[in-house]
């Protein structure tokens, strides 16, 4: 997990423009760092790391959940063999993937516009994206319920009998997820495109390349690291999202996040719940490490 810090930018030595001037002359002692970091690190260990270890322990403790019952891998076997789970995993995968594709189709042109075409509107668009993201997610999802409902504004606009599949369906979940996470998809792509020299496109135009050729041969390859990072970073929260499918989803869009929540809060099955949660955690860690490797390929100097 040491690599996560590097992804965030404060772990990498190479960031300082001139390594000699950055930390030359005066070396500060590790004792000072200990004093400064003591409070935050202690809190993280007690309130974040220890609970995770307890959760992992819960996932291998036999029922009833206390240490005297002995250890078992039954919960993992149960989670992996339960006939319901593959279906739920598949639903989650298809919904998250479709939302991802939809977001990329919007985010790539949007990022391109912000970097190369927006001019003085660039900052405005950036602020608007951040703003849209800072609204309460629960409220945003609720607003989509109002729009997509049987008597909602969309059905009012569409002539004929009300379209039933707009709400409480996979469509609603995909649409809502895509609008919720669009900020996080656009910004990494935007950051990657910031590094592209605009003259590249002018040269391509002079040489007679059309817009599609330019997009395929210049824009997408050069922004690819940003696109991969965006994909992976947005994928993790989408796989565990349960708020969206709770509010606008139906029986056909029951997702992994809901399953974990229901196992733990609904059925009180802490063993299976923690086992499933741990599997999700492992997946999140693997995806983050992948994102880190890709981010390293194209670090943009701030």
């Amino acid at each position: 997990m040491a690599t996560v810090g590097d992804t965030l930018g404060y772990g990498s030595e190479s960031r300082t423009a001139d390594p000699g001037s950055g930390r030359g002359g005066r070396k500060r002692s590790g004792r000072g760092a200990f004093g400064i970091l003591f409070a935050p690190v202690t809190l993280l260990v007690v309130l974040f790391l220890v609970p995770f270890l307890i959760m992992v322990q819960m996932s291998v403790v036999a029922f009833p959940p206390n240490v005297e019952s002995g250890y078992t891998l039954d919960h993992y076997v149960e989670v992996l063999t339960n006939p319901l789970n593959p279906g739920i995993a598949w639903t989650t995968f298809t919904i998250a993937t479709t939302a991802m594709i939809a977001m990329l189709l919007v985010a790539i042109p949007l990022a391109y516009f912000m970097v190369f075409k927006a001019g003085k509107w660039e900052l405005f668009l950036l602020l608007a994206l951040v703003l849209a993201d800072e609204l309460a997610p629960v409220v945003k999802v609720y607003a989509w319920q109002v729009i997509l409902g049987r008597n909602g504004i969309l059905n009012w606009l569409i002539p004929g009998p009300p379209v039933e599949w707009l709400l409480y369906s996979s469509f609603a979940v995909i649409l809502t997820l895509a609008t919720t996470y669009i900020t996080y998809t656009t910004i990494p792509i935007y950051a990657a495109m910031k590094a592209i020299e605009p003259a590249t496109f002018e040269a391509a135009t002079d040489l007679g390349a059309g817009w599609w050729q330019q997009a395929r041969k210049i824009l997408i390859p050069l922004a690819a690291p940003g696109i991969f990072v965006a994909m992976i970073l947005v994928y993790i929260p989408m796989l565990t999202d349960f708020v969206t499918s709770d509010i606008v989803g139906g029986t056909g869009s029951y997702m992994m996040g809901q399953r974990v929540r229901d196992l733990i809060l609904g059925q009180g099955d802490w063993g299976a719940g923690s086992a499933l949660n741990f599997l999700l955690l492992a997946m999140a860690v693997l995806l983050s490490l992948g994102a880190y490797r890709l981010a390293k390929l194209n670090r943009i100097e701030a």
Partner: protein
Amino acid sequence: MATQAVERAGPVVSGNIGAVRWRRRRALNAWGWRAFLAIVGLMLFGPLVILVLFSFNDSNVLAFPLEGVTTKWYSEALTDPVLRKALANSFSVAFIVAPLCLVLGTLAAFGLTRFRFRGRGVIGGLVGAPLVLPWLIIGIAALMGYARADIDLSLKTVIATQTVCTFPLVTAIVAAQLFRFQKVQEEAAIDLGCSRIQVLRHIILPHIGPALAAAAIFAFAWSFNNYEISAFTLGFQQTFPVWVYSSVRNPDHTAIVNAISALISVGQVALIWFALKLMRIRTGDKATTEMIAGTEAVAAAAKT
């Protein structure tokens, strides 16, 4: 995209297209972009507009067309005792979590950027982890931790877990800013006879001030809007997102949910917009763009 590059280079290179055709294509292109941006804007802010519209609707039923204008849902929402308690809980949690995060996050940022020591990578990873892991997973782990330690769930447990998951965001924002200005400046000031306090006052604070402000706003918004962690670490009380969540399927509450959601959202938009504008005046366009891009790239690792 061909025409966009042409636009950049000016009509000189477009000799083979012809000035009239070139102008026509450019106009078409501009309209295409405008339509695209309008659709994106509608997707992002349309829901908010709809909420505000419905909050003034005279009918309790969520249906178009609207039936007359009223403000009664606002007064009803603001006098609902359960909702008032939930709002008060959310505000008090956020007002405790945000300053705590600001202090802890800044400490961690200084420790990680200004000191070299063994195990720095591990600690960096530990600080970064809450940003990368989904809140569902963190919430469940916290629930089990509290159960094992025999701690009753209450607003205190919400505050504790939210603080631990939010201060790394402050760390990331402040650390990014600390990286941007060189440590030499601090050392030069010390060499010229400045005291530690003077360095803090005249060198460090002016540099990281805007980042601290941004971090405070983000931390407050994260805490106030958080549903996932609250849902798992909350006892019998409710916070605002938890209240909205439990009221969504209740038809009697629809109008009140609309009114209060509209009010809170508009308030948040105004507050954040104002703060970002202020930051832009203080630091200039380029620095703000860089900071937001950096902040958001970091926050991208986290989740909504």
